């Protein structure tokens, strides 16, 4: 990401009581040297100024730290299973042990690695496809655009999780790579649609025609004129795609699809459910992994509250109407 910028929208972004012809000088404008760094920091401070987004950033950073330093933080190894089975929380095992005799707390900590990894990789790849498809789809005209439209709508309405389950069943035990593959395969379409409509609206603006008159080619226009104006939307797509990827991975792992020996929050719940942790009353084993999934997904959604405010000033925090 090079810059996060608040693109003045053609409609709506300005208060109603303004005359035609642009910004109200009564509103102070930021001044100072123009640099990508400054633009980036302005975007970051807009996100940070949103209370909800600030909570999200802190939460996400905590999980990333947990994932990176898992071996340092966790009291035991993730698959170390020499402990008593189905133990309740105790001084040496704060969250108790699993039916296979593993330390629950250590598994929860190591589980962060899978979620963070899947979220970032699948989110990144989905967004990459969404950007490529969305931008070219928004820029071209004619029958090809109609065909892309049909394909994207098809991918959008086909239910993602059942499709993932079916593909995973055909592929047989592909492990985490397979899960990322199916998550990306079904996860790019929404972002592509959002980016396409923004591309279309930007492409209608005069500076695009001006770039054509200045002799720039289509590729340069897409990447130098249109793309930088969509950073906030792309950021939003990324966090959105990462959220659904994390939730999808946990769902698939919970069903036992993929590699059930990988320690992830979803597979912990798969084993917990299979070993009837409900009946043995090990509520921490049920509670902790799910709460972690919910919290990391919440943190991404919260950050998106701030990102929404970048591209739509009406959604910035405020009171009243």
């Amino acid at each position, binding site marked *: 990401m090079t810059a996060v910028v608040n693109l003045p929208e053609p409609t709506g972004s300005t208060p*109603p009581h303004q*005359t*035609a012809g642009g*910004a109200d000088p009564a*509103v102070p404008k930021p001044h100072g040297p123009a640099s990508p760094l400054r633009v980036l920091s302005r975007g970051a401070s807009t996100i940070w100024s949103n209370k909800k987004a600030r909570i999200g950033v802190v939460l996400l950073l905590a999980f990333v730290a947990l994932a990176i330093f898992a071996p340092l933080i966790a009291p035991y190894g993730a698959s170390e299973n020499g402990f008593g089975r189905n133990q309740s929380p105790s001084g040496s095992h704060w969250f108790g042990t699993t039916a296979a005799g593993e330390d629950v707390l250590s598994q929860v900590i190591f589980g962060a690695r899978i979620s963070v990894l899947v979220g970032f990789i699948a989110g990144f790849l989905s967004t990459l496809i969404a950007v490529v498809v969305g931008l070219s789809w928004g820029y071209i005209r004619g029958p090809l655009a109609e065909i892309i439209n049909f394909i994207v709508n098809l991918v959008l309405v086909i239910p993602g999780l059942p499709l993932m389950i079916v593909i995973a069943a055909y592929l047989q035990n592909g492990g985490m790579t397979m899960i990322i593959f199916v998550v990306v395969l079904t996860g790019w379409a929404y972002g592509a649609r959002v980016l396409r409509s923004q591309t279309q609206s930007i492409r209608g603006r*005069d500076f695009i025609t*001006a770039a054509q008159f200045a002799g720039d080619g289509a590729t340069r226009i897409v990447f130098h004129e249109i793309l930088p104006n969509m950073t906030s939307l792309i950021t939003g797509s990324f966090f959105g795609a990462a959220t659904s990827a994390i939730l999808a991975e946990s769902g698939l792992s919970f069903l036992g699809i993929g590699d059930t020996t990988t320690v992830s929050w979803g597979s912990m719940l798969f084993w917990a459910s299979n070993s009837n942790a409900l009946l043995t009353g090990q509520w921490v084993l049920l509670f902790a992994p799910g709460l972690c999934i919910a919290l990391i997904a919440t943190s991404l959604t919260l950050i998106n509250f701030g990102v929404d405010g970048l591209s739509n000033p009406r959604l910035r925090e405020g009171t009243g109407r």
Partner: protein
Amino acid sequence: MSLLEANNLSVIYEPRGAEPTYAVKNASFSLERGEFVGLVGESGSGKSTLGFAVTRLAKAPARISQGTILFDGRDIASMDEEELRKQRQGGFAMVLQSGMNALNPVRSIRKHFGDIFAAHDHVPKSKRLARAYELVEKVELPRDVLDRFPGELSGGMRQRVSIALALSLEPQLMVFDEPTTALDVLVQHAVMGTIRELQKSENFTALLISHDLGVVLESTSRVMVMSEGVIVEDGTSEQILHDPQHEYTQMLLGHYADPRAEVVEVPGLLVRGSTISLTGHDTVLGVVSPADGDPVTAAPSAPATPVRRRAGRPDAAAIVVDDVSKVYPRPRRGSDPVTAVDHVSFTLEPGQSMALVGASGSGKSTLAKLITGVERPTSGTIHFGEARVDRLRRTGLRDLRREVQMVFQDPYSALNPLHTVEYALMRPVLNYTDLRGAAARTRVLELLDTVGLTPVEQFAAKLPHQLSGGQRQRVVIARALACDPQVIIADEPVSMLDVSLRAGVLALLDGLRVTFGVSMLYITHDLLSARLVTDQIMVLNQGRVVESGQTAQVLRFPQDPYTMQLLEAIPQPQRAGAGR
């Protein structure tokens, strides 16, 4: 007792994460019953904010920070919401600038009326339909408009509906916020006419907020002039016109002129029109330093002799448009195909300056797209020198654009908000010339100097949001000149700018055209600017050329009724107080 009395009213603007500013400072004024008052100012003067404040529609981040608003003797500045809501019937109503979007797209016009009657219960149920019919007829709309949805109406019709809805409140005070700004010239004229008549027949007090002193002087008996949040002048229309006290008012007035006059002068530009003689070119007598508010020097500091063209560049060529038509497929089922351009022929000679005028929908912008190869004509041919513009493919178009450049209407949209001025100017230099590195940068700075944006180093580093509208338009002009083109197509280059900035940009454009020997196709609905910067004129109506010839000749002695209509629609401050 006055109907409305504002005392020491201030409105503060408190956006999140930015310093609060005062949009209106200590405004005091009164409106007498039955009076038609104008409120004039340029963008950002606070006039609309003031209008929203006195009707208590100001929303966050704007807030009335002090002062009282006595309406009919009661202070409405501190009135609670429900009491205020009731006041709106028989009290004060507002017609918004964007009449286009002021109607609920999913509700029929009939229901819009129904909602107002239901909210105030001031018309008995049995008489509501009749009253709605009466109201739409007052704004000169057919009765069946009640069964329509907003999306099915034209912009002018929607604004008339808004006026009828506001009227249904039977208000004592009507505030019109730029009621015709978004509309086409001829429609603007008609809607203003309706507003004037209604004000007389219904005898409400009216406050007309506008950036256009001409429109305001034509309609109102008293005018308040606002600048930077302060009411700087308040006087009768005659006083304002003939004896303006404040220098800001004087400056605004200086930018009005009648394009039909023999001598037309605005700050920076002066043209004299020969009478009926057909001997030719109007002379630009002098390019005076423009008072356009921008810290720039206007006179192009380019060499007095036309720049020498580099080797390998084609000789100056004419654009020849021959019997060109453009038909768009029918926009929806049941309607007819749209003929945007209808058998148009003309030649733009090298060095010539030609105006293409008409109301919106006259086909003038379509013609510009055809000439620049953005779209292809349905029939007919367009030549630029040897090249057939209507058949050009990618590389051909690139070659064409090296010679034919464009200046856009909206300076706020013509520059990418993320790129510096230097980047914007560097692109055509790199794409069309052999200059690289330091030489290219020198060329960019030279261009900035040419359009008067000095100190050039500072301007090169700026982002568009750090520039005023006039400065942005200068950058757009510099970009068009970067590849040393032969032809410039200027599409309404000053219509989005404040009146006071227009003359400076026009003077620059005209001066550069003469200096560099560039020909110009000037597209506009504004006949005054056409008179100032062109020698030849073509008047378009529904895709057809209805009249053409020398600009001074056509405008001074129009032959076609449509040209006369366009001339008639120009607001004339001189008509101030007419009929009163």
